[in-house]
């Protein structure tokens, strides 16, 4: 990999250079009861609005590459005949400015399912192929546990990754496009001192985590504790509202429905991101529901994230961003659920 260093203030130049494109980045959306800022991803028109020092956003940026609602196809009817028209829904390239390692790793995980060898999904692929990603270093919030999930550092899946060290940025360059854009700015080669500063910044970040998840033997423990009472306790709290899936950067489950317009000339097939916690997620025709209790649905969610995906790809589907726990109105958090499933081993 090629590394460069530039003055921290030059980041505004980088933003300007990229601003001929649509830029999506973290901005402050409002304030909570404690007057702490609330961030979310949105289109950024002015560098002043870009909040690169954000802790965590409420939602992930997935609506831009895995929209909550998406048209899969349109049917046109004429007499008894129909024609089907498919549009992958990507029209321009987007710059994602300021993604943290958790969200870059989330994209890499989604790629495995959605762009792997089994039926690669062009709706996702078309948008994914048109992303220019500028990653940015972060300071762990009290609910971040990405280091436990191995997602605290992004090894791939970005064009440029910027780590703030003192008053300079250390830039990791992974695409020729990013390399050429940096040619328009004041940069210098990274020296041995910069390499050491980068490592110091990484180790400082690792020392700041307040939240841990013990993932050792977790796939086996989830099998052992499949019938555990603990699931009923969490199921009793769960509101089955699906908020966790909405804010999650790696939840991709969906449902499909078709809609006919008022004059019967057209119909569309609409995909809606869903949540395995919703009551009818595993309901089949005739009314049978394979997971009628909130506890079995919540358990399934943990099963998919922390066992099934690990079995398939040797890594968890959870990146440890902590958004689901922050958003959950019932106060259910991943570290607490997993600790309680592991039980009194310590």
């Amino acid at each position, binding site marked *: 990999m090629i590394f460069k260093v530039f003055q921290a203030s030059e980041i505004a130049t980088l933003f300007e250079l990229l601003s001929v494109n649509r830029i999506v980045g973290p901005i402050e959306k409002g304030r909570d009861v404690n007057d702490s800022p609330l961030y979310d991803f949105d289109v950024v028109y002015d560098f002043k609005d870009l909040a690169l020092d954000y802790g965590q956003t409420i939602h992930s940026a997935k609506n831009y590459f895995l929209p909550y609602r998406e048209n899969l196809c349109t049917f046109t009817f004429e007499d008894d005949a129909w024609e089907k028209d498919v549009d992958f829904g990507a029209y321009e390239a987007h710059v994602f400015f300021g993604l943290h390692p958790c969200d870059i790793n989330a994209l890499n995980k989604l790629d495995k399912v959605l762009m792997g060898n089994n039926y690669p999904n062009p709706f996702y692929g078309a948008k994914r192929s048109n992303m220019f990603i500028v990653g940015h270093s972060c300071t762990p919030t009290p609910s971040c546990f990405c280091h436990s999930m191995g997602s605290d550092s992004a090894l791939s899946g970005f064009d440029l990754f910027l780590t703030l060290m003192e008053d300079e940025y250390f830039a990791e360059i992974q695409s020729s496009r990013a390399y050429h854009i940096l040619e328009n700015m004041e940069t210098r080669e990274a020296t041995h001192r910069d390499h050491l500063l980068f490592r110091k910044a990484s180790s400082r970040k690792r020392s700041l985590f307040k939240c841990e998840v013990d993932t050792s033997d977790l796939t086996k423990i989830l099998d052992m504790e499949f019938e555990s009472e603990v699931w009923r306790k969490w199921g009793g709290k769960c509101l089955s509202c699906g908020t966790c899936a909405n804010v999650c950067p790696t939840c991709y489950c969906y449902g499909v429905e078709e809609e006919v317009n008022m004059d019967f000339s057209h119909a569309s097939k609409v995909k809606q991101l869903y949540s395995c916690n919703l009551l009818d997620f595993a309901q089949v025709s005739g009314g049978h529901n394979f997971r009628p209790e909130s506890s079995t649905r919540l358990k*399934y969610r943990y099963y998919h994230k922390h066992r099934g995906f690990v079995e398939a790809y040797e890594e968890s589907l959870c990146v440890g961003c902590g958004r689901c726990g922050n958003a959950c109105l019932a106060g259910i958090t991943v570290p607490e659920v997993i600790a309680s499933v592991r039980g009194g081993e310590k």
Partner: protein
Amino acid sequence: MDNKLQFVDLAASHGTRVHKPGVEHFEYSYKAEITNLYSLTATEKLYQIQIVDPGERKKFTFLPGQFVMLELPGIGEAPFSISSSAIRHGDLEFCIRGVGKMTNFLNRVKRGTTVGISGPFGTHFPVENMAGSDILLIAGGLGIVPLRSPLMSVLENRSSYGRVDIIYGAREPLELLFTYQYEMWKQFDINLEIIVDKGDDKWSGPVGLITEILQARIDNGTANDFRKNTYAIVCGPPVMFKFVCEMLTRAGLPMEKMFVSLERRMHCGRGKCCRCNVGSTYTCLEGPVFDYWTVLNLKEAI
């Protein structure tokens, strides 16, 4: 403007890093015509559905046990097991019970209606590996539907198989499917045994549970045959195949030679929507046909 990112058109970008083979076919469906449909019982109909384009029809191949996504534009799309012979390619048959929004709509359509078909998807029964062995086909209720395609394959290659038994249970005689084909099946030297939970005035056959017939079949065979020389396909409600598979295991049949087909409500059929996951296994990719050993390892399958 030099920094304007070039738009990559995924559908047109063959040969580039981002292109994956098949990506442009993801939402593709064959146009297919319902050439005929008729009632088998009060609630089930048989649909004969033909892929319209003759070239596509011939190129369409599937293996017994696989399913397709059947789409009624504007109404919905759902998975259905193919119930016809694989040598008939894109001339397909489906037996469908009217239970939901889409199947009840299907119930009302006329001959000549054009539908969409995508697939085939999923795993299949290993009919070729079964050659040279005795075959036990065990169906409960609608389970006869996914079992009919491997049965056809056995009938078409009858000399490749040893003894063939069909054990079929239904709630009552009026619910029996494919009654008009039983005599034909018997002409292929198939032992067909049917049992119902509750008989009626005309019923002269056995009344009781499917496990009773199976027990008689087990008593009448040798343990050696079950251990070495038999394959079983079991389709039906989960509670039935749990009992049946346990009986067959006790009789000596290896779990790897026992196959079941699981039913879930897929929304995509392509390992993307997660709606068919059992535990964390995709029924659409790793199933719907599983051997019993795999099913035993799936949480909440039964």
